């Protein structure tokens, strides 16, 4: 006898959802037979607002595309603008940018630890990682003046130089975090229940992943090595030694393994940056922003964020404001196309875990 289907509304305000969006699921027993994502709760018309501002003013909006990791959006926009104008960026600024991007990556992964472990009821790891993330936010505060929103990477370089003794603090924080990762491993990755809850769940088909444009850890969790930092190096990534971890399987466990190893690679990159960073200017000053007109044309810059490849397209008609700005975020594919497909056939208990494993960020969808 066929069970009666029940409709459940997971979100828009729900402990199992990563932000303001909703997943409407139809379940028979505990099995999901249909999933529909609903977004629109956060729409603020970022792209349209950017058109109303001059080339510099948009940075207060850009960082709000994705709260956990705002820096890649700033960086891709800044680099697109620089490409459009042909503006050179000092070498020191490039190194600082990479350091900031990697620190943001680690901080964002710390939040992911909390989300992924929390979605499975393991709150201790989440409390630890969110607490440890604060040490990185302390560094951001000292460097940029802001803990979450930085508005630090901008056209021509970075907004200010590193304060005295900052390198030592960064290295000390990296040493601390590297030790803490062992604790996370013991409690989370070595935990048999965590393995049972994540292995074989939310499997992404490799062919579909490519067809749909899946990026980042969900793609690398299918065993496909794709990372903009290696495939199309920007800033100074081509001068740094690091590997891009991949894992076969395509399930939550594989995606978690990719992220687990990527944090260690980011720590490795930060140490190299501190070791290799040259002296000199940190900023190639732009003209008065109110009168700063960019040549006619368009440019696209892409950056590897924790969610995967993100990209910024800007178009200029020769004026002081962008004619058009368009952001390509990983979350659109992951949280809508992919999630709706992945959830069908899965257990009701796994919705939150699957969603967290994809790295969804609703504000990035509604831009």
């Amino acid at each position: 006898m066929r069970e009666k289907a029940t409709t459940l509304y997971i979100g828009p305000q729900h402990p199992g959802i990563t932000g303001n969006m909703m997943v409407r699921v139809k379940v028979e027993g505990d099995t999901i037979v249909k999933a529909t994502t609903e977004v629109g709760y956060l729409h603020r018309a970022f792209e349209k607002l950017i058109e109303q501002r001059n080339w510099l003013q948009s940075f207060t909006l850009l960082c709000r595309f994705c709260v956990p990791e705002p820096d890649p959006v700033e960086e891709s926009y800044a680099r697109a603008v620089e490409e459009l104008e042909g503006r050179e960026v000092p070498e020191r600024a490039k190194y600082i940018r990479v350091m900031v991007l990697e620190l943001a990556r680690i901080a964002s992964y710390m939040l992911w630890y909390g989300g992924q472990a929390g979605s499975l009821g393991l709150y201790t790891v989440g409390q630890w990682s969110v607490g440890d993330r604060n040490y990185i936010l302390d560094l951001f505060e000292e460097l940029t003046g802001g803990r979450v929103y930085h508005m630090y990477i901008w056209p021509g370089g970075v907004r200010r130089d590193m304060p005295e003794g900052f390198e030592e603090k960064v290295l000390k924080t990296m040493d601390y975090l590297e030790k803490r990762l062992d604790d996370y491993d013991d409690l989370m990755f070595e935990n048999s229940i965590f393995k049972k809850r994540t292995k074989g769940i939310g499997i992404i088909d490799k062919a579909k992943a490519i067809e749909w444009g899946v990026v980042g850890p969900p793609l690398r969790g299918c065993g496909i090595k794709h990372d903009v930092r290696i495939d199309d190096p920007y800033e100074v990534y081509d001068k740094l030694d690091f590997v891009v971890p991949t894992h076969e399987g395509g399930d939550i466990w594989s995606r978690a393994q990719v992220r687990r190893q990527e944090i260690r690679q980011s720590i490795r990159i930060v140490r190299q940056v501190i070791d290799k960073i040259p002296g000199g200017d940190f900023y190639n000053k732009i003209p008065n922003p109110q009168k700063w007109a960019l040549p006619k044309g368009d440019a696209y810059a892409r950056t590897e964020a924790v969610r995967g490849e993100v990209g910024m397209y800007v178009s200029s008609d020769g004026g002081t404001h962008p004619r058009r700005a368009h952001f390509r975020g990983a979350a659109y594919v992951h949280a809508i196309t992919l999630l709706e497909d992945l959830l069908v056939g899965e257990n009701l208990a796994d919705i939150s875990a699957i969603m967290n494993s994809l790295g969804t960020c609703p504000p990035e969808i509604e831009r």
Partner: protein
Amino acid sequence: MKEILYYTWGAIVSFVVAFSVGITYMGLNRKITARVQNRYGPPWYQNFIDVIKLYSKKTSIHHGVMHHMGPAFIMVTAVVSLLVIPILNGNKFFPNLNFQGDLIFLLYIMVFGPLGMALGAGQTGNPNSAIGVTRGLSQMAGFEIPWVMALVALMIQYKTTSIVDLMNVQVESGRWLMFSSPFAFLAAVMAMLGMFRYAPFDIVGAPQELASGPMSENGGKYLFVMMSAGSVFTFAKLTLYVDIFMGGADNLIILVVKTFTLYLIPMLYGITSPRYRTEQSVRWFWGWPSFFGLLAILQAALF
């Protein structure tokens, strides 16, 4: 008449003791969990404040008689269990409605509350409540097996269905049943993890999955009754374990030490564990815990 008053007064005092100790344990749970998680955490008496706050809230949502009775069923279960379970060895003040067969009676009465809650949650019409209740009953079918096996093993081994008789066996032999019937103890302790519904068995009200499950439509005074009943039931369950496996207690201090030591098991396991899915939880209880229960019965029957 004087005797009735004496026992009534004893029953009231035992309820107050059970409530206070139970709610303090839950408060300590929050504090210890916070310290493990690198947080300061709320004070140990926070749950007292929460209970008072919940009681003072006005309740304006009702879903019918059964919904109203759900929390009451839980409270009745907790209080009746408390009255049947001996609190101290040979003490006359605390009520003891002990009789031959009280272990079997407890097996039944301890599932009465969740069943009543199921009826109440079902009437709310909230799918989260209904799914939570289904999960709770499924899990109960899991941990009841090793729990019943452990008790049956003790009944066979010591040829009694009375808790007081089991306590007397321990007092006379000077040996706790956790040592003389280790398999029964293991099975019972593992079943206890399910009874407390802490991680990895917190599937009933899993926030990320079902909001708060059966409690979704309850607020204010309903939560007050459930929280109070939960405190009393926590104390009752722990005291039962102490009585049948750890020789009971001669005074309240020893009882608190023993019950809190037992309480640490589900608490610490919960702090370091993710949550099972429903079928994984049931399968777990039907695995090693049931195996130990079977060994306990074999030990009781053969030796």
